[in-house]
Structure formats: C-alpha cells, structure tokens
C-alpha cells in the first residue's frame, strides 16, 4: 500500500523559494492535506492545510492538482530559521486512517 512519499532532504539558500512535493496516491476522497514543520526536540507545528487547488497563508502556499494525488508545499524566500523537517499528512482512502509522510529535511544555507 503506497501511503505518502516525500524527498528525504533538500538544500536551499536564504531568500530562495522552496517547493516540497508529497505523493499520496491513495488519498481519502473527503480528507484534507496538511503540512507540518518540526524542529529538533519539538513537536510538529501546523503550517497549512488544503483540499484542492491553491491555498495561501502568511507563511506558505499549498498547491494541489485536480487528481489530489500529490501536493506541493511552497515556502517563499526561506531563511535560516526555516531549517527543519517538513511532513505532509493525509487520510488514506478506504482504510479510515491517516499517515505522516516520511518527512523532508530542509537545510537552508546562508
């Protein structure tokens, strides 16, 4: 059963835009896609959530194609403090469960 997959790590420089994609082939029809940020030795923190198309808030944008089998978290103009692990979380169709993605470790360099 394919759950969610994300790149293991990404490198970026301060001021750049970063896009992190999560694949979720078996997403539940009525469930949202949620992204979390986690710093070392802290609990995950909510970033953004969406169902389809595009959602934007003060820290990020979330792009979801029509088939909803993937989603892309976009972080505009990253800074060193954005160095963290980013997880997507989706509900899985027909299993009444949800799963965190494996997480993407973002390393922002000066």
């Amino acid at each position: 059963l394919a759950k969610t997959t994300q790149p293991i790590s990404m490198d970026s420089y301060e001021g750049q835009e970063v896009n992190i994609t999560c694949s979720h082939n078996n997403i539940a029809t009525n469930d949202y896609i949620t992204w979390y940020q986690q710093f070392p030795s802290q609990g995950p923190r909510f970033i953004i959530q969406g169902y389809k198309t595009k959602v934007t808030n003060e820290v990020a944008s979330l792009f979801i194609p029509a088939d909803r089998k993937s989603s892309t978290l976009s972080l505009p103009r990253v800074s060193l403090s954005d160095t963290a692990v980013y997880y997507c979380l989706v509900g899985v169709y027909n299993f009444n469960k949800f799963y965190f993605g494996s997480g993407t470790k973002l390393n922002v360099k000066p």
Partner: protein
Amino acid sequence: DAMVIQNPRYQVTQFGKPVTLSCSQTLNHNVMYWYQQKSSQAPKLLFHYYDKDFNNEADTPDNFQSRRPNTSFCFLDIRSPGLGDAAMYLCATSPQTSGRKTDTQYFGPGTRLTVL
C-alpha cells in the same frame, strides 16, 4: 495561551520498570493522540481517543496502554519498557468536529524517554 503540555520533558527509566507519561491540554479538544517518534523517523500513531472512545492502532504493542480520565488529561503507560521503546513520545489534540481524519492537530513538546 491555550496549549498542549507534556510532563516530564525528559524521562529516564530502567529496562522493565513501568513508566507513565502525561499530557494535558487547555484547548478543550475532544480528540487526543499519542505518537512515538524515533530518531530521523516520522511520528507513528500509537492510539487516540475520540472523547472517551479509545482507538488502538493494530500494530501498537500491548506493552503500551493509555488512560484518559477527563477531557484535559491523557496518560501513556509503558508497562515493561524495552530498549527499543526509547523514543520521543508526542501528544497531540484535535477538535475533529467534522469527522475528517486530518483535522489540524496541535502537538505538545514531547517527552524524550531513555531506557537504561
């Protein structure tokens, strides 16, 4: 500020000695979750409560138990900790009023458990 609190932040126990981790919330959310997170891995759901209804994940070992005496508090009991149970344990809450499985979750800071 409304929040999720976990105590203690660091817990050391001996192999086989029962240990209890606690979580409290001031958000008045009806759902509470317990996760286990090992180094460089995603959080793994152990179980959750929807109000008083307990939902155990199929692959959660019997060694892990939980209690929720009221809306605000939830406890994780590890009856006989093994070396493989050393991890960060995260508590989270969710309002989950819509019936969706992915309502926003609010996490506590976690308790790091060391087993000697």
